[in-house]
């Protein structure tokens, strides 16, 4: 049994919500955010095909590099930021403990 990790969601400037996440269920960040009540469409279900789970990584541990499918999808978006990622492509593992993210506005 692995210990739970902490993920932080910046809901407003300076206002972060802490979410405990298990790491032994193979969850993606998108799945965690959805389960935590955030308004994320995640229409494609986690295949990096719709970009409706777009988040901005603000701080935290270094994440594995995005794969081509994710980079291609991010490329099509009208607005991206330095830390833009598709949350469906971020696996929650002990190494993602302390990650801070902000949800991108719907449709961006």
């Amino acid at each position: 049994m692995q210990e739970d990790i902490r993920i932080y969601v910046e809901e407003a400037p300076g206002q972060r919500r802490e979410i405990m996440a298990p790491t032994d269920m193979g969850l993606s960040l998108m799945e965690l955010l959805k389960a935590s009540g955030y308004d994320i469409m995640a229409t494609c279900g986690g295949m990096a095909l719709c970009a409706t789970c777009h988040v901005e990584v603000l701080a935290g541990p270094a994440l594995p590099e995005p794969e081509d499918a994710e980079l291609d999808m991010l490329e099509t978006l009208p607005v991206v930021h330095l830390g833009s990622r598709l949350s469906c492509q971020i696996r929650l593992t002990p190494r993602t403990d302390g990650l801070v993210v902000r949800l991108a506005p719907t449709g961006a």
Partner: protein
Amino acid sequence: MSTPISTDICIIGAGPVGLFAVFEAGLLKLRCHVVDALPQPGGQLSEIYPKKPIYDIPGFPEILAGDLVDNLMKQIEPFQPTFTLGERVEQFQKLDDGSFQLFTTDGSEIHCKAVAIAGGLGSFEPRKPAVENLEQFEGGRGVHYMVRDPEHFRDKKIVIAGGGDSALDWTNFLANVASDVTLVHRGTTFRGAADSAEKVKTLAEAGKIKLVLNSNVTHLHGNGMLKEVTITGNDGQAETVPLDCFIPLFGLTPKLGPIGEWGLEIENDAVKVDTVDYSTSLPGVFAIGDINTYPGKLKLILCGFHEAALMCQGAFKYIFPDKKYTLKYTTVNGAPSM
């Protein structure tokens, strides 16, 4: 405009669940017509991931998405379904006798006794950038989200925005059609096909097009018709340029589309159903697969198959309220036929 198609159940969506619904309907001697906006059957399995293996189809330890579609097409063949592919069902009307009339984008007309919506993710529509008064210039007033007919842009002054393949390809193509082409990209690099990116750079160096990097189109101006756009650099520098057409090309994103406007009860962009028979709030209209929602919903192909079977029972009762149906196993009845 062709002659109207007449059938028992019109299935909207030719994905795996829509296709399997043909089989279950066929067992009840109900004929099906299947409509899909994509030009081939299979939905996202064919369009997006035909070579990806699926591991949770009962009886198949591993099967490629494309092969599953081929198998389903073979499985439903005995029931002789008919198809309208490459057209989207746009309008929908319930007639006084409880039957339905459907019209597609290309004017095809379908008359059916029940409707099964198996629309999956919905239809793929252009992603719109967050520019304030964009909608004001849609519908032939200067903003185009796709290039349907390149001739429309002949000798026009156009601004294309985007950094993906379609933005690159259309910039290259329209460079020879339009009088003036500007490509605006928020970044500096292009991930699209290397040769189209190279071609865009060559055209820009030769002065045939204008390439504006690190910038976004931020404002649209015009009185009724689009006249000018403001292009703002990431450094805050803004420039307003005159134009005839603005073409933002930011890929496609799945949207519920016209289904959302048919008066059905919708929740979180999905159609609410009763799990007894996957009926919607409108009698005679059913919704199965990823497009529906109910407590405990799982977006799995195998769940969609189950929903298809129960939906057909409901459709049968709706079409023949006086007939009694008894379940017969395919093992008893032998090879399926109409």
